């Protein structure tokens, strides 16, 4: 299948937002999506963007059933390991179901790795839900290690009221 991987432009944010919701539905947590294309436009396309994004595009003649030509995306940002240095975190990787099996996911992932490498990143990290076998298999086949299984790392989060409460306890300057 003929497809192109390119950097997302501000105009792609509506498509990216659509696919973020599709991914959240797949992950069984659609009610967790609180931001829309407006936040993506503001946060990804300002002077100091908080993330970068790639999109996968097909020509008109291969558009999806609903008429979309932007049919996949990878959203990522730069992080830091105090042990190894610069790293890239892959927040989302998604290809619309009807376009899977054509190497588009692999192409997106490889492009993120290539971009990271140019910035001297030595790691690419992401998280996967433990029941998401197709994704776990996909990443394992690419050489990713599951650090939760091999080293016992657990992801911990403060949000909502708990985050507010914690912040209120900070010492005064």
């Amino acid at each position, binding site marked *: 299948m003929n497809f192109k991987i390119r950097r997302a432009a501000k105009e792609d944010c509506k498509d990216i937002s659509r696919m973020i919701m599709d*991914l959240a539905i797949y992950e069984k947590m659609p009610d*967790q*999506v*609180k*931001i829309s294309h407006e936040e993506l436009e503001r*946060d990804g396309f300002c002077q100091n963007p*908080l993330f970068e994004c790639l999109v996968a595009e097909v020509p008109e003649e291969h558009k999806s059933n609903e008429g979309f030509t932007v049919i996949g995306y990878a*959203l990522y*940002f730069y*992080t*830091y*390991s*105090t*042990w*190894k*240095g*610069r790293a890239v975190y892959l*927040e*989302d990787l998604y290809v619309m179901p009807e376009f899977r099996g054509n190497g588009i996911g692999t192409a997106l992932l*490889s492009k993120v*790795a*290539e971009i990271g*490498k140019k910035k001297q990143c*030595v*790691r*690419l*990290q992401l*998280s*996967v*839900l*433990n*029941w998401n076998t197709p994704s*776990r298999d996909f*990443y394992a086949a*690419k*050489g*990713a*290690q*599951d*650090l*939760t*299984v091999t*080293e*016992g*790392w*657990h*992801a*911990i*989060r*403060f*949000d909502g*009221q*708990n*985050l*507010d*409460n*914690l*912040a209120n306890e*900070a*010492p005064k300057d």
Partner: protein
Amino acid sequence: MMAADAIFVYVQELAEYEKLAEHVKVTQKDLEQDGFSKNPFFHGIIAEVPEQHKTKEGHTKIGYALYFYSYSSWSGRAIYMEDLYVMPEFRGKGVGKALMSKVAQLALAAGCHQLNFTVLDWNKPSMDFYLSQGSFDITASMGYHCMRCEGEALEHLAQP
């Protein structure tokens, strides 16, 4: 610059505690370059005690938190706390809590909706501390697994 050398010492001490000391490849120079340039890859805060409480070796900088901004495609801007460390002789005095609360305060001031980090499952003191402060374990409760690609696997992936 002084902060980078203190952070470097504590990064190594924390790695020793986590039994993964041989994994530390970053140098003090890397920390200076990556944390204290125009577009830093990370930010740090330090806990300091007055001269009269300094350690046996003479340190007054006795703890640190290192963090950076991240992004959730579901909730927007977030903070990731990469390290939180207090020297053993200064624990149990609220220093860790103060550092973490300060990171949370900075997170809210920057418009972040989440403070994320990772803990080793056998590290009971840390796990208990974080859970008692109101965080939740999204690996245990939601099934998120942390994945990593590095070394040869990453090289291979990055081939155009």
